[in-house]
């Protein structure tokens, strides 16, 4: 009985905006929902907005990295946007470097990056 994070489709992009503090089950649900939606919609890009997240611990960090890998295998690039500076500093000290995860300052830059990646692939 946990809340689910909505996955919105805009054109060929899936947008996930995380607006509340996540418990572990919600994180796992999101991973599954997102993979299913990528396949169902044929999305080419995923943007995950974490600007509302006050912390990213190893569990959420691992979800972000795993999501990026799964999406790539399914043909979609993932951009994580809006990470707070304090969160980035904490993640690095925790020992998580989020290798393989593309990031952008905000949603606008994330979308721009996705378009550029799509143009490069075409």
């Amino acid at each position, binding site marked *: 009985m946990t809340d689910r994070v909505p996955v919105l489709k805009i054109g060929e992009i899936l947008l996930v905006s995380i607006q509340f503090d996540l418990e*572990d089950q919600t994180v796992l649900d999101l991973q599954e929902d997102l993979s299913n939606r990528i396949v169902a919609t044929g999305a080419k890009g995923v943007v995950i907005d974490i600007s509302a997240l006050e*912390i*990213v*611990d190893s569990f959420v*960090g*691992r979800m972000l990295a795993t999501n990026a890998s799964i999406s790539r295998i399914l043909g979609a690039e993932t951009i994580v946007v809006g990470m707070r500076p*304090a969160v980035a500093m904490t993640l690095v*000290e925790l020992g998580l470097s989020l290798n393989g995860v593309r990031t952008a300052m905000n949603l606008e830059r994330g979308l721009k990056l996705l378009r550029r990646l799509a143009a490069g692939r075409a």
Partner: protein
Amino acid sequence: MKDYGTAVATAETVEVTTSSDVVNARQVVRTLAQRGGLPLVHQTKLVTAASELGRNMLIYGGGGVVRAALVADSGRSGVYVEFRDQGPGIPDIETAMQDGWTSGSGLGLGLSGAKRLVDEFDIATGEGGTTVRIVKWGR
């Protein structure tokens, strides 16, 4: 680590038996950190450490109790958090404290990562369970 027993007497307590309790514990710790005037980065590090340790306690210790309180020492204020479970204990604590070592499905950053994020860290483990105590100081 100093004895913060007097602080614990007035501590806020969260019983952790599900992953949503870990979220509650995080929020209690965050509120205390804000009340104690910790800078934002320190708050974030403390709450992240609390999240790691709370999850560890739930997964490996079968749940337990989180106690958190404001503490003061030579003019500075900080937040003390204690995680106490009655699980099986950690057989090889030195190995468990190493980066990348995990007995479960995690990344092995829980204990070692949490230790890096706080100013004081103490762990006592045995057959009666595990207690982790941490302190994060303000400026």
